Structure formats: structure tokens, C-alpha cells
């Protein structure tokens, strides 16, 4: 194409416009934030530039005459099992720019997904299944350190009361929470929507590392505040604003890597909330510069416990990496009440593709090995485990809990609920769905009323499904499924994989 790099035509998508249906109403032109659609003055009709399409499907979704279909570019390179097109395109891109390849959302590469190789049990004849519509079914979950034993005191009138002082707990109506997505990486409308949906469904959302906007403090009973390496927006009121505090060490999409929210995204609201100058880059260092050991982590955990006067459980979030079981054991011993583990398929607003696609381990293996390790060491009850990173449906969540998690975090699924199509261009700040953008014109595409309803619907829908699955297994409480790996069977996994997962093969 004229005046463009020669590899410009190796684009990923083509826009298929049905000429019989297109009325040139320009809805697509107004919706596309990448300017793939445009009004051609010479031709007096809407035209498009395929090379600009990121495959977000916004135009297709809003086209009032259904004239648009976004397709994969059918242009094919010569087949080569080793040099697949993605590698060629990446090299062309880097040869032009000399830059690190940026990506977003979860890794699209084909890392084995163990959820798809695990099957759930159900009751037949020998034990009764339960109909959750007719009988009570408990999904309520408490996150926090549990005492080893309980002591009761008997009063004179014979009534008994709990003598053991319970450590602080987070009460959830469903074992699901909205993952940490910071204000700035996603916009205020979605933070408000998550807060409202969490309140409505009795769960929690996580503020992410960008602080908590002053108008959202009233959702405190459904908020977990995060303290990350950048310490953005962290102050005493913030730490005490929610029902839990989370120290973010790592993130599944980019273990070992910090964060960088570019200055263009630091609007007045984001700057105020993060307590940084307007328009300055918000850089989260790769490590916490005050945490170089488990002992250092212990200091921060207890600093936060002191600040919150031991009213709130402290969570530590780590990416699932090679020695995750040993690391989590250390974290629990350092005093964490909750450990959140983010698997290799976890999402992000921006990460170097090489890191996102090649660093970390699948969450299924991490959960199983951590749960086993903590049990072996007799400290499993000291902390709750939250699984994150690529939980796509309620069955994934149920399997995570059967593997040993107490609850799951959902980030990508929550964004998909409000329109995200995983085009994975969050880092451009031009999200056409109004999610990963602070551009006022784009951000208002998320109406918090609408978004909150969709998020709440998702949680309730998953809740119904979880109840059905539990009922089918003859269980009437999620508590009976926790770490109950006998309810799982593997299909098509090796002996080694099954050993780590602690499950038998189907048929056994």
C-alpha cells in the first residue's frame, strides 16, 4: 500500500461489508476508535482500512443493518510448522519498531488447559443427588485464617458460646470475586459497576493497585484494597476502607514484571486517586523495594495488620511460578490470611508478549501443589487460597475449588460480561468497548447501571450452575467440595500430571 511499511498488508483481520445491507449511516465510523472505518468524501460512502482493524467487533455489534462481519485475514503464508505466521508478523513488526512486543489480556498461546482435562463426578443410585431448587444449598464462603480448633464456654443456663477468638474473615455469598483491575487500567464507570455488582451479590471486588476513588468508599463492605509495588493511592483510610487488604507481589500475565500506566492515561481522577501528578507515568517497580525476603514480606503484612488494627485479613497475591508451593508456604508462615495465586493465563492491561506467553505455570497445577504442600505442612487452615487466571466458566471455578481453592478471582470473565471481545489492545488506551480507556468519549460507552446489572447477572448465573453441579454430586455445601479431589477425574493426562493434580484417571 502507498506510503506505508511494506508489511502493512499482513494484517490479522478483514472487514466484510455486505453492500446490499450497508446504508452508509456511519455508525461504524463513529464506533471504531482505531479509524478502520472512514467516510470517503470522494466516493461519498463509508470505506474501511483492513490494516487498522484489531478485531474488537464493536462495529459488527452496533451495525444497525448487520452489514458487517469481521473475519480472519484469509491470506496465507506458506505452511511451516515451525515458522508460524505469528512469529513472522512479530519479527516484521519489531524490525520496523525496534521495540518490545506488547500484548494484553491473557495469553492466547496454546498452553495446556487442565480444566478441559478434568471431569466432575455425579451421584447415581448409591447416594442421592440434591435438587438445589428444592433443597438448601450453601455457597457461602469465608476467606481468612481458620483456628486449628474451637473452644466453647458453657454458661450457667447451659447455653454454649464460642470461646475461641476468630481471626478476621471476608464473608462471600458466592466463592467468586472480581479480580484486581486498577482505576486507570479500567475506568471509573467499571469500578463503580464492579462495586455495585459486588454489593448486590454479596461478594467482593478488588481495587487493584490504583487506589480507591473517594466516591467508592461507601462500597467498603464489598471491597478488597490492594497494595502493590507502586503504592499508588495507599494511605491509612484506604487501607481501612475495605474488608481485606491485598499485597500484590505478582500477576499471572507478567510474573516478575512491574507495571507502567502511561501518562496519557493519568487523567485528573486517576492522578488524584493514585496520589501522583497529572499526566505523569505511573510506574510500578518489578519488586517491592522493601520486600526482598519472606521476612520482609512479614514486616509489610504486619505493618498492614497494625494499620488496620488486626480487623482485616491480609492477602498476598503471587503469580504461579515454578516453586509456587514453597513460596506460598513461606507467605502463609509470614502471616498472610489469604493467598491469591494467579496462573499463567491471567489477564492484564499490558504486558510484554514474551513474558505473558512464556512465563509462569498453569493455575490448576499451582493450586493442587500449593494445597497439597500446605496440607503436608499442617498449615492449610492458616490461610485461604484464591485461584485466579483463566477461570472461564462456573465449571472451571468448581474444579478449582475441588483442587483446593477456597474461592476464585475473575477478571477477564467480568470484562467479557460487559462487552470485552479479547481483542487484546488494552495498552493502546483506545478500547472501543469503553473498558480499558480513560478517554471520556470512549469511557462513557460503559453505563455503570447496565454494566453492574450484567456483572451481577454473571455472578448469579454462575452461582446457579455451581449449585447444580454440587447438587449433582450429592453435596449441599461448597465447603464439602473444597480440596475434595475425589470428585475429579482426569482424561488424557500423564501419570506425572495426575500425581501433581492429585486426581485419578477417569475409569478408576
Amino acid at each position, binding site marked *: 500500500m502507498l506510503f506505508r511499511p511494506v508489511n502493512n498488508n499482513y494484517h490479522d483481520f478483514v472487514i466484510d461489508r455486505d453492500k446490499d445491507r450497508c*446504508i452508509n449511516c456511519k*455508525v461504524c465510523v463513529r464506533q471504531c476508535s482505531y479509524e478502520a472505518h472512514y467516510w470517503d468524501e470522494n466516493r461519498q460512502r463509508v470505506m474501511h482500512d483492513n490494516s487498522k482493524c484489531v478485531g474488537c467487533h464493536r462495529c459488527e455489534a452496533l451495525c444497525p443493518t448487520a452489514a458487517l462481519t469481521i473475519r480472519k485475514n484469509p491470506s496465507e503464508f506458506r505452511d511451516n510448522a515451525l515458522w508460524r505466521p505469528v512469529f513472522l508478523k512479530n519479527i516484521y513488526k519489531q524490525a520496523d519498531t525496534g521495540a518490545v512486543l506488547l500484548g494484553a489480556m491473557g495469553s492466547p498461546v496454546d498452553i495446556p488447559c487442565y480444566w478441559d482435562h478434568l471431569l466432575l463426578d455425579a451421584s447415581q443410585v448409591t447416594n442421592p443427588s440434591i435438587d438445589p431448587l428444592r433443597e438448601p444449598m450453601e455457597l457461602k464462603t469465608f476467606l481468612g485464617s481458620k483456628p486449628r480448633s474451637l473452644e466453647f464456654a458453657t454458661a450457667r443456663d447451659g447455653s454454649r458460646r464460642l470461646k475461641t477468638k476468630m481471626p478476621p474473615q471476608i464473608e462471600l455469598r458466592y466463592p467468586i470475586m472480581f479480580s484486581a483491575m486498577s482505576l486507570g487500567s479500567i475506568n471509573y464507570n467499571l469500578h463503580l459497576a464492579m462495586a455495585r455488582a459486588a454489593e448486590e451479590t454479596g461478594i467482593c471486588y478488588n481495587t487493584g493497585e490504583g487506589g480507591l476513588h473517594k466516591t467508592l468508599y461507601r462500597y467498603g463492605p464489598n471491597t478488597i484494597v490492594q497494595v502493590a509495588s507502586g503504592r499508588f493511592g495507599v494511605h491509612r483510610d484506604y487501607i481501612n476502607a475495605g474488608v481485606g487488604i491485598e499485597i500484590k507481589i505478582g500477576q499471572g500475565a507478567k510474573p516478575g514484571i512491574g507495571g507502567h500506566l502511561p501518562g496519557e492515561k493519568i487523567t485528573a481522577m486517576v492522578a488524584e486517586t493514585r496520589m501522583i501528578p497529572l499526566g505523569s507515568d505511573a510506574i510500578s517497580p518489578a519488586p517491592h523495594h522493601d520486600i526482598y525476603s519472606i521476612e520482609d514480606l512479614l514486616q509489610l503484612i504486619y505493618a498492614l495488620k497494625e494499620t488496620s488494627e488486626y480487623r482485616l485479613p491480609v492477602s498476598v497475591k503471587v503469580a504461579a511460578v515454578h516453586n509456587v508451593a514453597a513460596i506460598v508456604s513461606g507467605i502463609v508462615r509470614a502471616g498472610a490470611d489469604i493467598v491469591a495465586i494467579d496462573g499463567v493465563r491471567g489477564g492484564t492491561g499490558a504486558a510484554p508478549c514474551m513474558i505473558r506467553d512464556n512465563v509462569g505455570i498453569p493455575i490448576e497445577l499451582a493450586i493442587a501443589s500449593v494445597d497439597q504442600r500446605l496440607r503436608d505442612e499442617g498449615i492449610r487452615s492458616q490461610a485461604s487460597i484464591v485461584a485466579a487466571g483463566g477461570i472461564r466458566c462456573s465449571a472451571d471455578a468448581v474444579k478449582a475449588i475441588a483442587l483446593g481453592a477456597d474461592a476464585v478471582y475473575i477478571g477477564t470473565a467480568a470484562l467479557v460480561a460487559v462487552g470485552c471481545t479479547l481483542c487484546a489492545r488494552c495498552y493502546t488506551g483506545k478500547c472501543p468497548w469503553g473498558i480499558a480507556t480513560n478517554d471520556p468519549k470512549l469511557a*462513557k460507552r460503559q453505563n455503570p447501571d*447496565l454494566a453492574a446489572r450484567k456483572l451481577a447477572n454473571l455472578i448469579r448465573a454462575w452461582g446457579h450452575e455451581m449449585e447444580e453441579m454440587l447438587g449433582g454430586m450429592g453435596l449441599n455445601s461448597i465447603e464439602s467440595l473444597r480440596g475434595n479431589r475425589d470428585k475429579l477425574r482426569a482424561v488424557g493426562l500423564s501419570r506425572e500430571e495426575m500425581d501433581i493434580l492429585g486426581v485419578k484417571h477417569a475409569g478408576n
Partner: protein
Amino acid sequence: MKRVYPNKDFCIGCHICELACLTAHSKSQDLIIAYTEERTAEGLSPCKRVFERGAQCVAISCRHCDEPSCVAACISGALRKDPETGRTVYDEQKCVGCWSCLMACPYGAIRRHPLKAKIVKCDLCQGREAGPACVQACPNQALVYEER
């Protein structure tokens, strides 16, 4: 009375309300025919318009005011207030195309018919079962039809 209220905070400027309005007031009730044929041949135009300035946009249509200036200004009795429904009703037969109402409307919610000496004004999709078409079509619920 129930009115269509725009919410400028969440109007995304897609203009889909205009297309819905156009279709609802067309003979064919088909967007493609209404937009490509009826619009050019018969001057079919939407009763509402999206106004934009920078990041702000809002879809404006007749407010069906309690004390409508357009009715006071109308010289031919084509515009009147329906005492029962509360709507500001337009009778095209009586309209003489003097544009007094256009001058009087503080919202700029009345527009000239592109071909005839008549006006185009929101009738709240009278008779349409699902209510005003613009409200039904708005993808971001930036238009609501409610009593306030």
C-alpha cells in the same frame, strides 16, 4: 406523563436512535429501505437529533413541555397540547410552514421537513407497542422513557 429523557453522560453519539426513529416513522418499517429510499425520495427524517461537542453528546427530541412555547407560537393551530395524554401533538394538515415553532422551541427539537413546508417533531412513537423506538434501540440505555 412519561417522557423520553436523554442522559448525556452515557450518550455515546452512535446516532442509532436517529435510525430507529427514522425506521419507526417510515412506511416500510425497514431501516435499509427507509434510509436509502424513503429518506431521499420522500424526505423522511428522524424526529430527534444527536448534538455533539467534543466528548459531550446528547440526543434531543421534543420535550413535550408542560407549557410549550411552540404551541403558543403556532399560528395555525397545528400544534396543540393534548389535555389527556399531556403530549404536544402536531397536525400536519393544519401546518402552514411558517416556522414560528422552530423559533420558539428552546431546545431546537423541531426541524423543518426537508422537502415540504412542514415540520418534523417527536410524537413519542404514538401507537407503537414497544414504546418509543429510540429508547428501545439505544445500546447504552442513555435514553429512558419514564415518569419523572
